[in-house]
């Protein structure tokens, strides 16, 4: 199958403007600006069934339709803060197929009437930001950004903005705070960004991969897109596959592909041919799925993965083989969340601190069975009480790890 998002794998040099253009590039943006009303663009995206690819899976067109039309100016922000352990897809898209992402962002701006957009990149993407700046300049030069685009009364500018090493800035309101020059700490919601976003103005924030889906949807229509994937989850997804597989990497597959297909066909199976012990489908924020043959044949879409007691999230599939101890896994994930907790709300700040102390003790072999129950208790106390999803995410691997792999913890505290 030819790629819809990772098109650089089929079309060499598509990160060059001339090549992108020759392969249909900017036709969709031109079509939108010259032949469609802004709300018609939103309607097509809505009808396509596209859902946000950053992890939450919120319907994209519906989000765009929420923009407050009584308060101006409007902004669009691309979330390129990719920092979830196990996720590395947006980086490949921006490095190798940058114009499709930028075109999608431009179409979104037109749909919601924004004339300024920001791409918020994690600080570590320093070289990538410079590269995108150059691509944006090329688009300005070619007349795809700037004033009176396609001879119409529509102007647009795109700017990059670098974060500086904070996972929390992937949370959309923390990202906005950061972009405003403050510490990246989430806001209390509601109000949500479509009514109160950047500088208090209506703002649409979407993930890089989400925007990259938009040009082909506008070019080919909603029905074309809806026919790919499953009834619950339309279209394709870039799966970031990592862990103990032979061939880790990004794989673009239609929703509904199975774990087996991803791990064994694309990832070439497990190192040394070992059995799989657990799958984390959404990076470090995942619940742990106990793997059997039935799980491997489960189609991956948002609704079906939920029946396995986990969320698909950003589809960052980390594979654990039978040599991996789950107490070690959660010690790793908790070290991450303890470090990345922004400190604003008490359950997350304190909860992660104590979970870290407990997982460390258990993993070092100096813990007791009571420590394991206390750890589970702390995690469950946090659930539903944190200001944003980070606190919730931190508890996922802990709770499911202890509940679904009790043997590992018995061994850890006895050893």
């Amino acid at each position: 199958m030819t790629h819809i998002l990772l098109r650089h794998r089929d079309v060499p040099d598509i990160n060059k403007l001339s090549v992108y253009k020759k392969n249909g590039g900017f036709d969709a943006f031109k079509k939108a600006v010259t032949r469609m009303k802004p709300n018609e663009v939103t309607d097509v995206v809505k009808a396509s069934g596209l859902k946000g690819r950053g992890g939450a899976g919120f319907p994209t067109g519906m989000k765009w339709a929420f923009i407050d039309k009584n308060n101006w100016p409007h902004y669009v922000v691309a979330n390129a803060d990719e920092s979830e352990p196990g996720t590395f897809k947006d980086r490949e898209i921006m490095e190798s197929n940058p114009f499709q992402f930028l075109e999608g962002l431009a179409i979104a701006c037109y749909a919601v009437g924004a004339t300024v957009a920001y791409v918020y990149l994690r600080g570590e993407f320093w070289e990538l930001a410079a590269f995108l700046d150059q691509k944006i300049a090329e688009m300005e030069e070619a007349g795809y950004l700037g004033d009176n685009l396609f001879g119409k009364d529509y102007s647009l500018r795109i700017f990059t903005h670098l974060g500086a090493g904070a996972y929390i800035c992937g949370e959309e309101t923390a990202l906005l705070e950061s972009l405003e020059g403050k510490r990246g700490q989430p806001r209390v919601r509601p109000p949500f960004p479509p009514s109160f976003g950047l500088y208090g103005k209506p703002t649409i924030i979407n993930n890089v991969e989400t925007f990259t889906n938009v040009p082909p949807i506008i070019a080919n229509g909603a029905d074309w897109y809806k026919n790919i994937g499953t009834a619950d989850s339309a279209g394709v997804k870039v799966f970031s596959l990592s862990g103990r597989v032979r061939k880790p990497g990004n794989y673009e597959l239609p929703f509904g592909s199975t774990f087996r297909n991803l791990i064994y066909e694309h990832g070439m199976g497990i190192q040394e041919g070992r059995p799989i012990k657990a799958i984390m489908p959404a990076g470090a924020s995942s619940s742990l799925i106990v793997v059997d043959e039935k799980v491997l044949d489960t189609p991956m879409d948002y609704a079906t993965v939920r029946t396995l007691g986990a969320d698909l999230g950003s589809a960052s599939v980390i594979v654990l083989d039978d040599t991996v101890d789950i107490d070690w896994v959660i010690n790793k994930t908790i070290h991450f969340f303890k470090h990345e907790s922004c400190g604003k709300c008490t359950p997350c700040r304190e909860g992660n601190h104590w979970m870290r102390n407990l997982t460390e003790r258990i993993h070092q072999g100096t813990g007791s069975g009571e420590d394991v129950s206390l750890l589970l208790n702390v995690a469950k106390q946090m659930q539903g009480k944190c200001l944003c999803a980070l606190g919730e995410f931190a508890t996922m691997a802990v709770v499911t790890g202890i509940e679904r792999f009790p043997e590992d913890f018995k061994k850890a505290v006895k050893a």
Partner: protein
Amino acid sequence: MSLEKKYAKEIKQILAKYPPEHKRSAVMPLLYLAQREAGYINKEAMKEIAHLLDITETDVASIVGFYTLYHDRKAGKYRMQVCTDLPCALRGADEFLDKLCGNLGIKVGETTEDGLVTVESVMCLAACDRAPMFQTQGPDGIKYHEYMTVDRTMELIEALKGVKE
């Protein structure tokens, strides 16, 4: 020399990205500029940035303290930041870091005697499929080094010794 004198053009370009009434947004790019100048962000730079943006020095310091890529004290010329998060660790990142430190005769967080390299352990860098990997943060910005071995890293360190200012 003050940032404003030395980087007048860059500062103007940075400020132009944001609405004039929201120039506080420029604090992060200006901090990168200050860090490029001195290798870390000193009090003087924070004061100057506060002045440029009409915010307090405390505001600026709170940003420096919050984000891990800003440093308020000197370290090696290059910070070698190894990702040891779960996916990298599943591909040998912890062993890589141990061996590298052993070779350099330092512990994690310490700097080599010649002041060239500080080795640090950091959180996810979005390169899980290319581990072991690290980024170098130095005078020329941030660079990724992927599919690394200890031998290749030692070669890189040798090459960094020859880099002129």
